[in-house]
């Protein structure tokens, strides 16, 4: 019973931290399960994918009902994230464990560096405030003749669709290999390259996470890469933690948490690198 509750508590912490700091909880779940509970990286990734789907589902539902996410753009891009996830999910069963651990160490180090660079008060996947609503994103701001123009929204016009599609494939591969939502790639891609406002990009990325993670989670499921006894308590904990975190994020001074989080990411990166090198 204790292990079940500790797993759930770990999930709560990962979901809470992720929501408070604007990162998905997925980036913490794999280190938690591998370094804390001794699971193989691949099995931890399978569990993390389930957690990511559950966490993003409720939020994406709200974003859609409030018309914050750009459904049309999200569906076009998730076709490519799903293709990437399909390739990544199959590749994950071909790559040796140390390679997966090494890739995860790189992701953790990159996330820590990004968080340090961004500083305080800004985040790639910050929870959306209630006021962050836009009118029907399916209706183009201008009157483009090309079909691509119909992916635009009020006040912005989507550009760089080809780059967005290519980047989405990469986001899908990363998601499937490492068990994360891929927002760390998708949000900057949509915002900086495609001209989508940050709040819309964040909500649209959240919408895409479900299909992206599902495309690879099915592969993990059918190949025995998901342990339901581990996935259940962890996913439940992450869901609770993320729900609490998203409701309290605006009341919390994130500076101390952010500094602590960077330390956790760096420590996890070092430990995952040691595991990759056979020393962990």
């Amino acid at each position, binding site marked *: *019973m204790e*292990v*079940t*509750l500790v*797993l*759930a508590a770990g999930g709560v912490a990962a979901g809470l931290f992720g929501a408070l700091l604007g990162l998905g909880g997925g980036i913490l779940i794999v280190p938690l399960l591998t370094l804390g*509970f*001794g699971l193989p990286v691949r099995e931890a990734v399978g569990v993390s994918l*389930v957690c990511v*789907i*559950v966490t993003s*589902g*409720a939020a*994406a*539902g*709200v*974003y*859609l*009902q*409030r*018309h914050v*996410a750009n*459904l*049309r753009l999200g*569906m*076009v891009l*998730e*076709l490519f994230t*799903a293709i990437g*996830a*399909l390739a990544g*999910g*199959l590749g994950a069963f071909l790559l040796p464990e140390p390679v997966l651990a090494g890739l995860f160490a790189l992701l953790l180090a990159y996330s820590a560096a990004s968080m340090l660079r961004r500083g305080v008060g800004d985040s790639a996947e910050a929870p959306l405030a209630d006021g962050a609503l836009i009118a*029907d994103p*399916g*209706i183009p701001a201008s009157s483009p003749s090309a*079909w691509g123009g119909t992916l635009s929204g009020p006040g912005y016009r989507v550009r760089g669709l080809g780059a967005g599609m290519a980047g989405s494939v990469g986001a899908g591969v990363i998601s499937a290999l490492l068990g994360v939502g891929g927002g760390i790639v998708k949000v900057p891609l949509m915002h900086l390259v495609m001209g989508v406002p940050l709040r819309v990009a964040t909500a649209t990325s959240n919408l895409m996470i*479900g*299909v992206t*993670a*599902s*495309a*690879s*989670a*099915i*592969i993990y*499921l*059918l*190949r*025995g890469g*998901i*342990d*339901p*006894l*581990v*996935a*259940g*308590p962890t*996913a*439940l904990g992450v869901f609770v933690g993320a729900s609490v975190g998203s409701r309290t994020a605006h009341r919390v001074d994130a500076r101390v948490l952010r500094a602590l989080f960077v330390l956790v990411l760096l420590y996890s990166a070092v430990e995952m690198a040691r595991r990759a090198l056979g020393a962990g």
Partner: protein
Amino acid sequence: MGVQRIDRMELERVLGRLLAAGTYLAVVLVGLGVAGLVLADRSPLGPGVAPFDPGRLPADIAAGRAEGFLWLGIIVAIATPAARVGAALFGYARLGERTMAAVSAAVLAVIALGVLLALGTG
């Protein structure tokens, strides 16, 4: 414009409700499974359970076994985004948006391909 035609905003509302409902259903099922684990005092890190077998699911749930509820919750969670895409395909087809309907169908095709490849090479 036909009276029965749903507009884009309504489609988004329907898809949003579907996503939320599927997610909460999955969480409830997983919660029942976790409660079963706690009550049975089973360790998740003990001997693993058998790989996913859809044929055993009804019997496991009927017997109140924790893994039955956990598997079902996980399946509902994984299937919910695909169900959202299926509903979008239906909605876009009704709206006469053939390109978006084709995009939706292509997403479903990629997911289906993943299932086939996983079964075929597993």
